[in-house]
């Protein structure tokens, strides 16, 4: 390891990044932590109210709806992305004709703006004239005059999971694909000689070898779920009512209602959840190793 003289030189190299990124982000967290202890509309002066916002939050029905939806979204999208990503990666690795085409199709949404994807889904999933219901009617799976409210109170969160999986499954696929490349071929050859079938090889070699990859994807999925905002805001806006709110859209609504102190308290809950879940997940996966 080479080291340069000049005690302050290194700080010149890192200063812009540390100040603009680290400084701004940690300052914002501190600011949010303080704001969460105040009654504040976001514009005029802040009134210190102690933990009142948190007390109110833990009594707020909407908070529990948003919390449950966030949990459902998190578990649903992490699971589906892992299962589908692994499946597609395993098949693509068999070097079947067209596997590069398939990989490109699944990866394409990652390059597209979630705002645009969300808008396409919003109109596609619309209850009366949306293309999904029209397609189902054409296929005879839905009667004339029948509608499925894909973005309604019952199915909204599931549809948002679908949009999330559409957007990010290609990511799990690529990460699994990279992981598959590092499993030595002779493991499979030996298993095949022993007469292990495709499923047996999948469950006894592939999945255990990819444990590290899976746990990285779970960590990123957990944090990613807490970051999810646009695909909800631009489809259901958390509605109808508050039924499809995630924590992030609930926070945004409260901010729009000029409840900056209260919405900062929601922000702190999201932040603590992101850090705690990430740390717990990383600890758990380190212990397994």
């Amino acid at each position: 390891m080479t080291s340069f003289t000049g005690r302050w030189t290194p700080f010149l190299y890192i200063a812009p990044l540390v100040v603009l990124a680290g400084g701004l982000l940690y300052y914002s967290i501190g600011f949010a932590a303080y704001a969460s202890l105040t009654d504040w509309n976001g514009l005029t002066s802040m009134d210190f109210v102690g933990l009142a916002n948190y007390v109110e939050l833990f009594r707020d029905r909407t908070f529990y709806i948003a919390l449950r939806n966030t949990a459902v979204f998190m578990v649903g999208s992490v699971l589906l992305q892992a299962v589908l990503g692994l499946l597609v990666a395993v098949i693509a690795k068999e070097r079947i004709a067209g596997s590069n085409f398939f990989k490109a199709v699944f990866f394409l949404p990652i390059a597209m703006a979630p705002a645009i994807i969300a808008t396409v889904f919003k109109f596609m999933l619309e209850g009366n004239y949306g293309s999904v219901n029209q397609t189902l009617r054409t296929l005879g799976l839905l009667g004339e005059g029948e509608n499925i409210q894909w973005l309604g109170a019952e199915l909204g969160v599931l549809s948002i999971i679908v949009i999330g999986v559409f957007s990010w499954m290609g990511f799990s696929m690529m990460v699994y694909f990279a992981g598959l490349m590092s499993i030595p071929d002779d493991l499979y050859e030996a298993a095949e000689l022993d007469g292990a079938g495709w499923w047996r090889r999948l469950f006894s070699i592939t999945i255990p070898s990819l444990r590290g990859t899976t746990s990285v994807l779970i960590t990123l999925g957990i944090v990613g779920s807490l970051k999810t905002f646009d695909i909800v805001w631009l489809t259901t806006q958390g509605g109808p009512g508050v039924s499809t709110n995630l924590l992030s859209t609930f926070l945004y609504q409260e901010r729009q209602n000029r409840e900056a102190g209260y919405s900062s308290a929601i922000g702190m809950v999201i932040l603590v959840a992101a850090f705690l879940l990430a740390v717990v997940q990383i600890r758990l996966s380190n212990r397994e190793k």
Partner: protein
Amino acid sequence: MRTTKLAPLVAMYAVIGGLALLWLYPIGVALFESFAVGGWGNYAAVLDHDTFDYWSAIGNSFLLAGGTTAAIVVFASLAAYAFSRMRFAGKTVLYRALLACLAIPVASVITPLFTTIDDFGLRNNYLGVIIPLFAFNVVVMLLLMKNHFDGIPTELVEAATIDGASPLGIFWRIFLPLSGPALATISVLSFVYSWNEYLLPNLLISEPGMYPVTQAVALLQNERMSQEQIGQLYAGLILMTIPSVFVYLFSQRYLQSGITAGAVKN
């Protein structure tokens, strides 16, 4: 080389082909609907629209994404060089504190960001969006660059040091020339991530003429849309996706390897 038997092959195509159809369905719908009522006229109408200016939205996105990318490439590689090759007080703590920022959801700090940017008088100013975009995206690029720099052999640096090269000289003449693909990767990632961002511009830009594409989508919508307007909306969405598709086609390799590396080395 294993030979795959027919039955499993059919099963594999059924699974992957079925999924690919599901993935192509929304794109197919958007294309079909953009022509269904109004045909090419929808595209003409979107390019000559009262409230929505396609070229300005694209230009605005380019400014935001380009500015953020430039700042990230310069400052992430400088900082990565220091974190990789220099010794200084608090290095590990600082680096870990920066990496922890990867877990911060944008939504959780929008109120402080809004107030801070407003205090600096940078609302409705691209610099006011580029700074937070930089803050939220630079850390993963720092991680990628540092991992890359860590792999550059020490012997090269030692030889140059003996020849009397300064730290900045070594960065410029040894590290950067060996980092073409890594720099391309972080450029593409920064560009795509900032281009796709919605929440930050939506928070900090309220002037419709300044909207990047992600915000401009709203300009094509209203409460009661006619079939024709929906056709125009889809046409607009497709037109606004074209730059992303181009970036994707020309940089697929960097995008895929970068995104994967960011995950694996976390």
